């Protein structure tokens, strides 16, 4: 039996993208929550993500890198079709990335400006990613109606990132800020419920392929596991955040973990809807794949290196465990 390399690479790319969405999602979410906090809290919030954001964004480079390596044809098609949202996302990521450093070095109104750019960059990047996702689901269909759908997805994704950021802050902060984060979590949950609900209603309307996949009885019944499990996790995060607010003995990472489960389920649903297409209705993973010789080389390299990457990522989260204080950047 030969290995189906394109399938393996699709799985690897999926893992990289899910890792990116969850990891950079929480630090983008924290960035979007900045205006809701006071100056001292902002320092704590940035300190909580300071050691991690850089490696988090590397998962984006890996995901895009794998698309480039394994599916060069799709890379060109997808990225040229998403040209402007990609540029907007990149500019957003640049602004917020350097704002980490600039905001602690600047003084007076400069500092305010970099705080604002940190928020703006986080928001712009999240919004652009949402538009990219929406456009990707519809197969890059042009037209105003589709653009509204893209905006809907973008709104949902921003809410999802805010939820990730808020639950991250529940885990990594304490006291008044943690209490605030519980409130943000609740808002994020409502926003996500609305967003996911609307997107789920709209997706079968905009895509025939997805509709066929979703309403294919009796498979649909098995598929119902995904929304039901999402609903259960949603309720669980809601309850867990409430218990944090009351000070019950519950691990402070629980809401964050629950949010990751919601993300993983949504991601599974998306993967199920789109598979085996890389560009819906047009390019399948096997059509877009690179030559097996280059896939093999990268696969061997990835299998050797990925355990190390995971190993030292775990190590760094271990080193920077515990509650954040606002003093990280006073090094």
């Amino acid at each position, binding site marked *: 039996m030969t*290995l*189906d*390399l394109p*399938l393996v690479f699709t799985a690897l790319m999926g893992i990289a993208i899910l890792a990116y969405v969850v990891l950079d999602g929480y630090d983008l979410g924290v960035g979007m929550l900045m205006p809701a906090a006071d100056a001292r809290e902002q320092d704590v919030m940035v300190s909580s993500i300071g050691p*991690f954001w*850089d490696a988090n*964004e*590397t998962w984006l*480079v*890996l995901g*895009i890198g794998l698309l*480039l*390596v394994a599916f*060069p*044809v799709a*890379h*060109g*098609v*997808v*990225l*040229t*079709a*998403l*040209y*402007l*949202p990609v*540029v907007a996302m*990149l500019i957003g990521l*640049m*602004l917020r*990335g*350097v704002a980490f*450093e*600039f905001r602690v*070095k600047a003084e007076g109104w400069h500092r305010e400006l970099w705080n604002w750019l940190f928020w703006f960059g986080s928001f712009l990047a999240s919004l652009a990613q949402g538009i990219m996702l929406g456009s990707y689901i519809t*197969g*890059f269909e*042009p037209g105003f109606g589709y*653009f509204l759908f893209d905006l809907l997805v973008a709104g949902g994704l921003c809410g999802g990132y805010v939820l990730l950021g808020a639950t991250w802050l529940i885990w990594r902060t304490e006291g008044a800020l943690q209490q605030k984060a519980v409130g943000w979590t609740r808002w994020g949950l409502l926003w996500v419920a609305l967003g996911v609900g609307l997107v789920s209603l709209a997706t079968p309307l905009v895509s025939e392929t997805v509709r066929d996949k979703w309403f294919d009885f009796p498979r649909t019944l098995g598929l119902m596991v995904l929304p039901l499990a999402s609903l259960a996790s949603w309720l669980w995060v809601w309850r867990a955040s409430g218990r944090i607010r009351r000070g019950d003995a519950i691990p402070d990472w629980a809401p964050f973990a629950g949010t990751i489960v919601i993300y993983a389920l949504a991601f599974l649903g998306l993967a199920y809807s789109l*598979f*085996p297409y890389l560009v819906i*209705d*047009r*390019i*399948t993973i*096997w*059509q*877009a*794949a*690179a*030559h097996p010789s*280059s896939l093999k*080389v*990268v696969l061997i*390299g990835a299998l050797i*290196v990925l355990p190390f*990457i995971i190993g*030292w990522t775990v190590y*760094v989260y271990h080193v920077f465990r515990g509650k954040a204080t606002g003093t990280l950047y006073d*090094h």
Partner: protein
Amino acid sequence: MLYQAVNPVFKPARPQNPALFGGEGRIFRPEHPERRLAPRRLEPRGLSIDCPVLKLTKSITWNGSSPIRQIRTPETKPPMDASDAVFLARAQFGLNISFHILFPTITIALAWILVYFRAQYARTGDAGWLETYRLWTKIFALTFAMGVVSGIVMSFQFGTNWPGFMNTVGNVAGPLLAFEVLTAFFLEATFLGVMLFGMNRVPGWMHMLSTVLVAVGTSLSAFWILALNSWMQTPTGHAYVDGALIAGDWWQVMFNPSFPYRLTHMLLASGLTAAFVVAGLSAWRLLQAAGDRAARRTLRTGLVIAAVLAPLQAWVGDLHGLNTLEHQPAKIAAMEAIWKTDKGVPLVLFAIPNEAQRRNDFAIEIPKGASLILKHSADAELKGLDHFEPDIPPVAPLFFSFRLMVGMGMLMIALSWFGVWKTRGGMLPARWLLWTLAGFTFSGWIATLAGWMVTEIGRQPWLVTGILRTADAAAPISGAQLGASLTGYVITYSMMLIAYMVVLTHMAGKGSAPEPGRHAALRQGAAA
């Protein structure tokens, strides 16, 4: 619409090697670019366990130009001139990559200088070294962040601006880029956190190791990206199988003929750039507070590194040039503005190359100089540009960039040697010398950018020498989209660059001990 899959032009790739395009090629060919693509459904293959890549990639040739559905027809919007699209794509990519390279050029070597500071602290226990390490770690962090965010742009622009590049040579370029991400990016990004914020959280040896691993990561990154760039200059080790270009021998792909020279040249360039940043910012600090002991020490460190590396760079640069003469002779002919093949060719010191007339105006020459330098024989024959027509790079940009690079190199040798002499035995140099050094803080950038201009423009009209032409790799992006994004990038980059230079100067001016008490004491010491 905000974004549109406009597909005004997608030039068919000119087949360089018929084998590459045998049968149904992997390149999209627009037989009927005006035809709207009918949405066509492909049957999913299900979970096949064989590897049907080659069979299926052939069906990628759609009945139109690309799998992007066309939403505008040429009647409603005339296609942009292909050369304009290529020019804009090149301008934008050039801007992005030039901006990006500024920061890795500093961090590759500065990471090792930090290892030195960290090791000195570990060895001596002198708190002064720790303060120095901390100050330069902050400068490193800022520079690194600039490099990371502008580097993410690069990973997207291969696809957005040059889809033809990945379609044609993706099987070689892809794995090299993937290994850069896997081995270098994660290593440096992960341990940077420990290095920057972990000093009180991990044992001393672990912190030292993290500093080393960040430096290893930055150098590894240079290794992979230069392997790819050198392969694009002097491709070896590839093969054609079933019409696709693949790597036949990875060792030959990576260690292609120009790679060892280009890598060494770039690492030394990074060393020089970082050394002048260290020396320049230390000089700036000494202009504010002449008594700063740490700044005197780092000034000396920067100058000594520069004084050692600068002449070494001249030597390696010469070897690199001879290697280029062997493998890319047209590039050398353009760099030296040699229009006609001849014996005993003079060395053109200065001229204004006249592309229309194929000659040099206002030339100042050393008779037989070029033959002597390049062939080590005064009467040796050198191939001129006439020999390589029509595939020659633009001459004037190459000619001037090369002279700018060499000129900067000469100034750097002179300044670093003079500076080392003037700082011997802990001496404080005169203020004019400190001002000069401060002015030279970013001199490495100018030399490095000029050098990259030489090597990249010198490869034209090829994107991958002999395999893929630049014009055939450009993306079908509309001029409006390119224009809008170019504007966005220019504004963002200008702001970031200004902020970067201002903050760096400001941080360095405050010195390594920002506590007000100590700061005041140092100032008094300087005044006394």
